[in-house]
């Protein structure tokens, strides 16, 4: 068997801004942002369900906008602020969306959850009190096979109230 590397000399190096930190990363030029995040930066919190832009599991934020990282070439990401699920938890603790998703069982198998959470964060950042219809529109590109979506809406409602400084945290 030929065990020489098939990729020698083909990698490119660039700086990516992920969760507020600059990372110098070397990767094959054909790699998607999804692949570089998971394989080269070890940020496996971002998931893949189709790698064809159909399920929303790989959603990350690029300059605050939800994007399907499986359809983004990493080479195009220079100078863009990328945010992943790992960056959602800060020194202050989990984001209200993360806590609400966990507490209200909006994450069952949890595989689609990072994608939903990123989409929901972008939604709350632009609309602090989204209606049910707005939620349905904004989340229509994220598939979930476990929940039937209702508990996800409820979690967003609760997190939105918390972000607005309303309502207690209890049930």
């Amino acid at each position, binding site marked *: *068997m*030929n*065990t*020489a*590397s*098939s*990729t020698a000399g083909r990698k490119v190096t660039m700086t990516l801004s992920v969760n507020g930190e600059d990372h110098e990363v070397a990767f094959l030029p*054909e790699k998607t942002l999804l692949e570089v995040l*998971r*394989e080269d930066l070890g*940020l*496996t*919190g*971002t*998931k*893949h*369900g*189709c*790698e*064809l832009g*159909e*399920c929303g*599991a790989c959603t990350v934020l690029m300059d605050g906008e939800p994007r399907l990282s499986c359809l983004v070439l990493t080479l195009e990401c220079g100078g863009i602020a990328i945010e*992943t*699920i*790992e960056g*959602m938890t800060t020194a202050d603790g*989990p984001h209200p*969306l*993360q*806590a609400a*998703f*966990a*507490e*209200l*069982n909006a*994450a*069952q*198998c*949890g*595989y*689609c*959850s*990072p994608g939903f*959470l990123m989409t929901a964060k972008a939604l709350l950042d632009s609309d602090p009190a989204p209606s049910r219809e707005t*939620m*349905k*529109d904004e*989340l*229509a590109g*994220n*598939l*979930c*096979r*476990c*929940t*039937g*979506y*209702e*508990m996800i809406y409820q979690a967003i409602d609760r997190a939105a109230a918390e972000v607005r400084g309303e309502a207690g945290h209890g049930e």
Partner: protein
Amino acid sequence: MASDREFNLIGKSPLRVDGMAKCAGQTKFADDLSMPRMLFAKLHRSPVAHAKIVGIDTSKAEAMPGVVAVLTGKSMPIPFGILPVSQDEHVLAFDKVRFIGDPVAAVAAVDEGTAYEAMLAIEVTYEELPVVLNAEQALANEAPAIHDYGDDGNVHKRVSMQFGDVEQAFEDSDEIFTDITLFGSNTHLAMEQHASLGHVAADGRVTIHSSTQTPHYLHKAACKVLELPPSRVRIIATPNGGGFGGKSDPFNHEIVVAKLSQVTNRPVKISLTREEVFQCHRGRHTVLMKSRMGMTKDGKITGIHFQSLLDGGSYGSFGVATTYYTGALQTVTYEVPTYRFDGVRAFTNKAPSGPKRGHGTPQPRFAIEVQLDKAAEKLGIDPAELRLRMIQPPESVTANWLYVNSIGLAECIEKVVEGSGWKERFGKLPRGHGLGLACSSYISGAGLPIYWNAMPHSGVQLKVDRGGGVAVFCGETEIGQGSDTVLATCVAEVLGLELLDVRVCAGDTDLTPVDLGSYSSRVTLMMGNAAIQAAERAREIIGKHAAKRMGIPGNRVVFAGNRVFDAEDPERGMSFSEAVQIAEAEQGTIGTVGSYSPPPNPGRYRGSGVGPTATYSYTAAVVEIFADEETGMIEVDKVWIAHDIGRALNRNLVIGQVEGGVYMGLGEALMEDMAYREKRRGVLKHPSMLEYKSITTHEMPEVITTLVEHPDPRGPFGAKEVGQGPLLPMMPAVANALHDALGVRVDQVPIHPDLVMKALKAKDKRAGPKKFPDLLITDTQRVKTQAEGGDGTAPRSPKEKAVQS
């Protein structure tokens, strides 16, 4: 367990133990794992549906830079499969391929891209064979046999059984309803694509990390194929990113990474593409059904003769069990005094069908519940009233010898009738709007294991730490349903702890006692009972020494709030950890075990192993729809569902399962369609998440859930299953609502808009199958019912008697 007891955790909704990790991106699913020097594997899959393999040339792949190993089927000649009676799969096919996607060769390379290129460079020469693409064609046996085993030709399994005199019952009936219905195939579509990582330690022991629902069965299959004793192979089930039955079979890719790691002495990972996940399938069988139901004019069933023809796809999978399941549970909801079931499972050149949520029971449930709706109309009885009149009594034995323990179906029906305003609104909504009702039942775990043995179905081991923490070990696998949380809850409830005091170690064949896996809605009931036993044993040890220290009788010791104290003087006591330290000082390290086996079932005829359970769950649902008569499009406006859960252990988890079941059932009713192009020799029609339609936020209606809670003495704290039952009534409820909306019957799912249009244009206002083939039954097992004085056995046939003597 007294029903009036006050609980710490049971019935509430504490945060699930895996919740925060899942929302922080910390949970490691199989493809999130990596190891130093890890290689990536790809499978070369057949592009043709049925062919002999004439030659395989791997030389170009082997010569590619970065390719470390290439395997073909001859390296693993031992067959495997989930059921002992159908060990019909090879890790890599070497004699013939049976469907588009059948794996033929495997490559391991330094990166995934190289593995993919090398996989494409493998050249296989095929001699194509005629293809069989539906069950009727298979039954006709005109094409060459897909397998060299089975009941004849492409008939994998043919079964027939009769309980009581059905024909006589029909003669005594006022009406006989005959309906032919078709349930089309659909697949699990778990969000996580299957992935596995195999590695070999320096001492030769093999480990497979995999997204599997059944590590114990994978362990058996891997040991068999790799020819290694079980002590040298370890399976670690990673949290499944959704299962729904789709990760219950041992799969080619799981064993191939182990073999590749043996060959290369390096870790090897595989992550399937979405198209490959469709090819793994094991989803809902397409079933063509014919049901004859006799009824009295006041709406009592006199007998049912039910026939199923299952399209099994290319391999056995769970199919023999599925076949029996299409005939088993018709009798546990309503009184059916006489019953006959005939079933045939056929092999076809499609991805293998198998167990999907509801396993073989949604199809007959659809047929029966639609038939009852028609019967109600003909007899002039309200469909809800008709069902309420004939509910199976509790603590009874059905015609086919299934024991029904508790049954909350009447209350379920009453709840959804009340919630939906059924009495005021059914049959009275404006044209296009309609209400439909249906009911169902499901097992809380299969009464028998997949391979015959007398050992427990679930084992739990507890390690009690002197610091006050408890570690609980169990072979169960978390697939999203919340089994880790249920396990921790049962232990924490008994020992008076919080969930965070309990560490769960699950699904690891080296470390955890066997639990048969996350299938058949068995985990809460079986693991829960085993966990309670283990925890009660620990409580007894700790309580005994704590009582002695406090100078009180043992029966006054209470475990609650992380304390151990005197029931009569709660101030007198100690922390849980102090109590553990006292007990440990007295008698050494504290560990206990618990185990569970379901009660024996009364049936003792061939096939009686499929259907029994400790207790059945029951569900009733009403669906409100709008059906557009211009386009045939159906929108679901609202769902009312009531589920007999026995007792909800964690309310949020239970409601999540109900809502998730409703969601998946509505998808099956309206759009999910695992279809093939017959003219293109078996190409899958919808091999992506875009083409394979599922319900999004836009189609999902509001769901009003009611839990009916009457603790069942056989369940842990009284709990029954919830993972599968609530899916079942959705499909017939939608079909029945369509009739209320537009006066048409579509006796087929998915109910695509073109079928609605076809029904609107048809003279009989019906769309659906019209013919049912002769299943060529020659031998029917006859079993006397309890009413006839039977004892659950079948008299031996003359053929069997001859063999015996």
